[in-house]
């Protein structure tokens, strides 16, 4: 009898529930779960804490948990995420962001301008020792704070929670600040995370964000573990179309693909050398060119290939390299031949900025002959330096064969994959140097300044390129608030380095390629290589 009574009551309650909010209930119940086997296919991410992660895969998860002031959409457009608008005064030295109202963290706390101050105070603190803290150096006085030499520059980051504004004072005019601030290191945090250490991400209940998802299960194990995110019930934006996303951690790409192909996951990575086969089998919805470029640079200080006197030799080498061959043979078309250092999608991008778009064998032979005619002798085999173990030997081998066609002797110069390659290149040990760059934020300066400006010699300017003309063009672009003028200056700087000085040869633009189960109908990827999990449509 009691059971029957309860049954009737339950039926009445269920009917009431359906009558009141039936549509909502059924819509949530219908939202599918998604299992991702590609994001962490090469191992556990370094971090998923936005203040600490320095890898694309870690940042991808972090951006699902935290919304910053701005972000880039799948079409490459910058938009306000928490910020509704932003303005600058005194020539891009001060930026004022107005925040949207009524946004909340997943714990229900309001997202305020002071939440950003708290987040930046934590992320840029020298004690947290974040690898990405240097992005804060654009802000006046922040370098001293992030290096432990000074207090947090409170006068440079001013929150007005009543007016919902955040005012940021820059060290120098920074026209691109709205794009730079989209980096995950500038995420807001709730008061519960103030002063939190790096351990916070190990407990799913403590890493509290304001993004479309919240953490349900943190990283508890390395390979074989998983990270689980579920929709944030307090999210102010569009609710994700998935009820849950599970990121499985693999330590082997082949195993991750096999897990996908045996029905364990909704997507998977593509093991090296199988792009054509697997993209033919599973389709190309998961393929996208992203904001990254691979290149081979010339050591500007090397007596054989460096300096203005050897421009013809560099030009011969640049023309000899068969970018199409590298794209097709090594990357099976997923990485497209690059015609410049800036990749398509960067604001101000222009195709054909480099010396060549494909291969110009006759031009290469002519330039090499001219260089020899100037009294130069056939050089000893020129070294192509690269870090071993990442497949660069195959690219280098193609280039060595390309140069042989011109008569230029070259040889492979592998460096152990022990983290010392880049420091050796920085100190001028290379001749032709393998390099690559992936955008931190979608601006031209993020490529040209760190890779080629004389102030970054000993840093990411592996070629030790030192050109006053180039520096002047970049410096004028950086300090300008006129967007079109700045972009034009960046384009001129790119031409100066790639055509006038031939200091590097961009080979391919980077791409991401993921195989998708047929049930995944929409799979947006931003130009920064971030998968927009809250917009994935399954079924």
């Amino acid at each position, binding site marked *: 009898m009691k059971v029957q009574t309860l049954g009737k009551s339950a039926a009445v309650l269920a009917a009431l529930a359906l009558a009141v909010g039936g549509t909502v209930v059924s819509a949530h119940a219908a939202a599918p779960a998604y299992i991702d086997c590609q994001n962490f296919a090469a*191992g*556990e*991410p*370094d*971090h998923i804490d936005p203040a*600490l992660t*320095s*890898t694309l895969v870690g940042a991808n998860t972090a951006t699902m948990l935290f919304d910053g002031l701005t972000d880039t959409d799948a079409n490459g457009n910058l938009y306000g995420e928490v910020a509704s608008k932003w303005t600058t005064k005194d020539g891009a030295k001060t930026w004022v962001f107005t925040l949207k109202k009524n946004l909340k963290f997943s714990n229900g706390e309001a997202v305020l301008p002071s939440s950003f101050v708290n987040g930046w105070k934590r992320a840029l603190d*020298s*004690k947290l*020792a*974040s*690898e990405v*803290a*240097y992005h804060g*150096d654009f802000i006046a006085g922040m*370098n001293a704070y*992030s*290096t*432990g030499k000074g207090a947090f520059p409170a006068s440079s980051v001013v929150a007005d929670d009543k007016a919902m504004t955040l005012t940021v004072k820059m060290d120098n005019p920074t026209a691109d600040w709205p794009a730079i601030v989209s980096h995950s290191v500038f995420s807001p945090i709730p008061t519960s995370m103030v002063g939190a250490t*790096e*351990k916070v991400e*190990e407990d799913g209940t403590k890493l509290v964000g304001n993004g479309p998802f919240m953490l349900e299960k943190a*990283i*508890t*194990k*390395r*390979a*074989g*573990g998983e990270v689980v995110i579920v929709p944030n019930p307090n999210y102010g934006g569009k609710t994700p179309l998935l009820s849950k996303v599970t990121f*499985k*951690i*693999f*330590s*082997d790409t*082949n*195993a*991750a693909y*096999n*897990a996908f*192909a*045996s*029905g*364990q996951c909704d997507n998977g990575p593509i093991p090296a050398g199988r792009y054509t086969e697997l993209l033919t089998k599973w389709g190309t919805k998961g393929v996208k060119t992203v904001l990254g470029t691979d290149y081979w640079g010339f050591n500007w200080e090397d007596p054989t290939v460096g300096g203005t006197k050897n421009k013809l030799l560099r030009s011969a080498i640049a023309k000899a390299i068969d970018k199409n061959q590298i794209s097709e043979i090594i990357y099976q078309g997923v990485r497209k031949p690059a015609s410049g250092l800036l990749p398509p999608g960067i604001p101000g991008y222009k195709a054909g900025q480099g010396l060549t778009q494909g291969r110009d064998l006759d031009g290469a032979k002519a330039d090499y002959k001219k260089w020899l005619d100037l009294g130069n002798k056939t050089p000893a085999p020129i070294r192509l330096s690269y870090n071993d173990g990442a497949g660069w030997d195959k690219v280098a081998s193609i280039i060595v064969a390309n140069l042989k066609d011109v008569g230029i002797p070259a040889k492979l110069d592998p460096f*152990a*994959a*022990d*983290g*010392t390659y*880049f*420091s050796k290149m*920085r100190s001028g040990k290379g001749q032709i140097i393998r*390099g*690559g*760059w*992936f955008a931190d934020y979608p601006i031209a300066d993020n490529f040209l300044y*760190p890779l080629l400006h004389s102030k970054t010699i000993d*840093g*990411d300017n592996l070629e030790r390129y030192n050109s006053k003309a180039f520096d002047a063009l970049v410096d004028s672009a950086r300090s300008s608030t006129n967007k079109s003028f700045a972009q034009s200056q960046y384009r001129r700087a790119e031409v100066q380095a790639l055509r006038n000085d031939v200091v590097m040869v961009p080979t391919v633009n980077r791409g991401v390629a993921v195989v998708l189960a047929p049930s995944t109908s929409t799979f947006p990827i931003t130009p920064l290589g971030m998968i927009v999990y809250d917009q994935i449509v399954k079924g």
Partner: protein
Amino acid sequence: MFTYTIKRLLQSLLVVWAAVTLMFALFFIIPGDPISLKSGEKSLPPEILDNIERKYGLDKPTYVQYFRFWGNLFRGDLGYSYKNDKSVNTILHDGLSTSARLLFWGALFQLIIALAVGLTSAIKRGSLGDRLGTVFSVGIQGIPVFVSGLLAQYLFGVLPFQVGWDWLNFFKPWPQTWTLGVIPTDSWKGMILPALVVAVVDAAFIARMLRSSLLEVLRADYIRTAFAKGLSARRVWLHHALRNALIPVVTVYGTSLIAIFGVAVQTEKVFSLPGMGSTIADSALSQDAPVVLGLAIVVIAFGAFVNLVVDLSYALIDPRIKIDAKAVH
């Protein structure tokens, strides 16, 4: 036997100390920079590098780091991973159970396969079964785990799923819940393939060892006598022949249990199991010294323990063998 055991335990401690000291030294001698490995293609400003080095105590002289390591170890703190700041104690805690379960099932499958193949080959000497057993033994040993693991995933995972025979799909996630510590209560299929891959490599060798050992014992006079007394073949095989043939096999099996750890490292990596093996491999590649040293202590201690158990087990299998404390010397 008690004195012998104590002496062997002390010896094991010495081995652990020497091995860890050697590995600690190697991390400083071999070229490489774990912090640079973390940053990948992009250079970090020197001030940021200083922050990171201070955080991990890498700014201190080597000998200070060495004594600090042992000091922390005596307090039960193995340090923190350079890669993701995770406590090595947590990594060990998380990984140990998975590795132990994989080793348990691998060792069990290994024993079953080795006994089945070895006995069949010896009893049916020269038969088709014997020849197939020999081919299996030789063939399987030549296949690296990276190949056999991926092949197993394809044959018993990808292929059945794609032709709609999911009942034959054994490539499933590693079980999450266990009863009595070692019996999976969900997704038991996920345990089978990795354990078999671990098992087959040395099972083949042990099977061949058992076969030759059995064949030698079977030629002994006491076996002929046992048959002449009218004992059943089953009794002669199991009680007289097998027991005597097991002495060399146990030695090999003990060694194999240590070697199986190496196989498990690769198997865990190929199957991406959350065990210590895959962690050791990943950490070694990224020069994550605290993790490698912490895990090495466990592996070395495990090896010393297995050796001790094997030595003690001789006396149990063959009462003629006496453990002598002086034998330590």
